[in-house]
């Protein structure tokens, strides 16, 4: 491990320490995510005024945009963890990368569904090949490919490293795909639909959006903690610290 990494970070990458840390963080993250989520939804669905162009239909962006942002953010986290796992062989990084994949795929799916719903209201069609949605679709396939590759290995660690490598290749691909789809859209002149219009947003619309972004991020942290803890237990099942936890829970 590199010498410049602070000691507490190095300690955190040890499975039993991270297990305890994540266990402490998770309830707070869930609670905060729930609170912020409700506040954001109230602000977006009730308090914010109707858009002068789209009426009430635009309100789905309070879910769609944070989910789209998370789908990209989680992919970046997955890529960074995969990089750390491959270069420095940190076990925790492997687990974090693989645990993030299904969460990211779920957010991508929600983005696609909400985008489709919005499209139906706006243009009467359930699907449109605009640049953003098409890029999200390809992103979903990338996530699914990583998940499928991970599960096709019997050795969990080897599967994690291999799928992590695939995720890294995908990272290079995401901007390329986005660029090519944008070009493809201009070529076919069909729908220059921009799901997020150039209209500046009123402040009353911005704060629910930002709050929801924070809420989804906290949800991701909570979910990641939960999944990582479960995966760590499975990965280290032969070790002493896991056995102690199991005994403690059996006694309780």
């Amino acid at each position, binding site marked *: 491990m590199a010498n410049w990494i602070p000691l507490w970070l190095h300690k955190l990458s040890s499975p039993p320490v991270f297990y305890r840390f994540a266990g402490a963080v998770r309830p707070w993250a869930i609670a905060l995510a729930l609170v912020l989520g409700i506040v954001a939804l109230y602000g977006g669905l009730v308090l914010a005024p109707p858009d002068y162009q789209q009426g009430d239909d635009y309100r789905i962006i309070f879910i769609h945009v944070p989910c789209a942002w998370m789908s990209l953010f989680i992919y970046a986290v997955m890529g960074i963890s995969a990089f750390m796992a491959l270069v420095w062989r940190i076990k925790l990084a492997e687990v974090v990368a693989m645990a993030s994949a299904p969460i990211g795929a779920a957010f991508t799916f929600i983005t696609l569904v909400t985008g489709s719903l919005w499209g139906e209201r706006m243009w009467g069609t359930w699907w449109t090949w605009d640049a953003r949605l098409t890029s999200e679709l390809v992103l979903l396939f990338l996530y699914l490919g990583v998940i499928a590759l991970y599960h096709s290995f*019997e*050795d*969990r660690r080897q599967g994690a490293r291999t799928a992590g490598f695939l995720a890294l290749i995908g990272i290079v691909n995401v901007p390329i795909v986005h660029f090519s789809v944008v070009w493809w859209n201009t070529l076919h002149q069909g729908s220059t639909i921009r799901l997020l219009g150039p209209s500046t947003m009123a402040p009353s619309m911005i704060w629910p959006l930002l709050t929801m972004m924070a809420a989804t991020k906290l949800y991701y942290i909570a979910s990641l903690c939960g999944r990582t803890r479960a995966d760590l237990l499975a990965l*280290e*099942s*032969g*070790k002493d610290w896991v056995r102690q936890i199991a005994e403690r829970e059996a006694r309780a």
Partner: protein
Amino acid sequence: MPAMTDTPPTATLLEARALGFHRQDESVFGPLDFRLATGELMLIEGDNGSGKTTLMRILTGLLRPEEGELLWRGEPLTWDRCSGEVVFLGHQLGLKAELSPRENLRFTIGLHGHRNHSHIDEALTRVGLTGYEDEPVRKLSAGQKKRVALARLLLIPATLWLLDEPYANLDRSGIELVDALLEAHIAHGGAALVTSHGAVQFHGGEPQRVRLHD
């Protein structure tokens, strides 16, 4: 074989300190310590499933050990440090079934960057495959295939031979062939590490023995 640039009489090639390997929480083989120098032969014994092949793959540099240290000439063993001095004969022989022994050996020579193909016939005769040089390998028996792989040892100069189950599939004359090759190699300052799951009688003197337990 080209004239050898002289190595000192015994240079330690391989050294293992507390070498171990896990897979999915199960220990494949436990802490291992050994040292192999030039002019020495080491025999790794163990039953089926005791991790001999995994150990071999670690020694070639294809696999990274999880515990302990493995040194090649005093430095941690990596592929680029030892490639070019090591020849590996694995359980899968690395022969293309559709090509003949001659074509397979031509490829091996070319792959190692040499151009001289004139010794292929001599090598094939030495391993007892006269008359079979141009038969596709898939038509040969298991023992004959093994002999083609052994011919590789004659054509590629290397300091260290890593042979995984070299005696498998061979008849008595084949076993004597392997012994003869090993004796000649050791006598000229090479080293060899051989795995076997049966008892092996080596005529060139007593080898170091390392036993892998389950």
